[in-house]
């Protein structure tokens, strides 16, 4: 049965920084073990990075003088400035 070197080494308890040597038949095999790149660390949310929603309503304007309102004309929007066709060319 032939297995890959990687599969074979999976079965060995290797330690980073060490060099292992062994004979396989007439061959001398050396395995140098180096630590790989560390994986991403767990990233807990940093509280100081989090925006907060207000937890209370700030006071509304204090009631002042109370008056009876009178009917008025509806408030119309400000007329928008719409560019002409020539402005798009």
């Amino acid at each position, binding site marked *: 049965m032939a297995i890959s070197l990687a599969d074979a080494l999976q079965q060995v308890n290797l330690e980073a920084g060490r060099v292992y040597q062994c004979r396989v038949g007439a061959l001398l095999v050396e395995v140098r073990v180096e630590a790989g790149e560390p994986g*991403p660390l*767990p*990233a*807990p*949310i940093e509280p*100081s990075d*989090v*925006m*907060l*929603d*207000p937890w*209370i*309503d*700030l*006071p*509304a*304007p*204090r*009631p*002042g*003088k*109370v*008056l*009876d*309102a*009178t*009917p008025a004309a509806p408030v119309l929007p*400000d007329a928008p*400035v719409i560019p002409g066709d020539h402005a798009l060319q």
Partner: protein
Amino acid sequence: MIYSIPSPDDPIDQGDLVDGCPILQIAHFDPQLPDSPRVACSTHRVVVLTQTCDLANQKTQRVVVAIVHSAQLLVAQKIVRASDVRGPIRAGRVFGWYFLPAAAELGLEESIVDFRQLFTIPVDVIRKLTAAGRRQARVQPLYREHLAKHFSDTYSRIGLPEPFETQ
């Protein structure tokens, strides 16, 4: 310097702090008499939020303003804690609330702008107030843009049901 002092005849600009602005509220409303609600009026220090370009080009007849609250008063009324003012509010980490630092030489105390209650005021009313010397100060560029960014963030934020999971 965070603030400047515009002269009374300077045009209105975003970041202007204006005292004595009349704010109207509906005090009583009867759906059976929709044309005659009772209206309450009070005056407040406000900050102008309308974009400078709209004001400069006279594209608007109304000015968006927000009330400027005294931070000390809010703390005294136990509405917010002093530690919250010094911490997250001052750091700009609370959507809808914007901290303005004190400037003793201008008579400005530490304040909190409430972006969650907005009012539109006829531009003529603000002009009359500024001409009468009621403009206390103007938030300078950079700080003004910082304020405007926080204002826009308050209304453009998108809330997720819950934070993303992490490993």
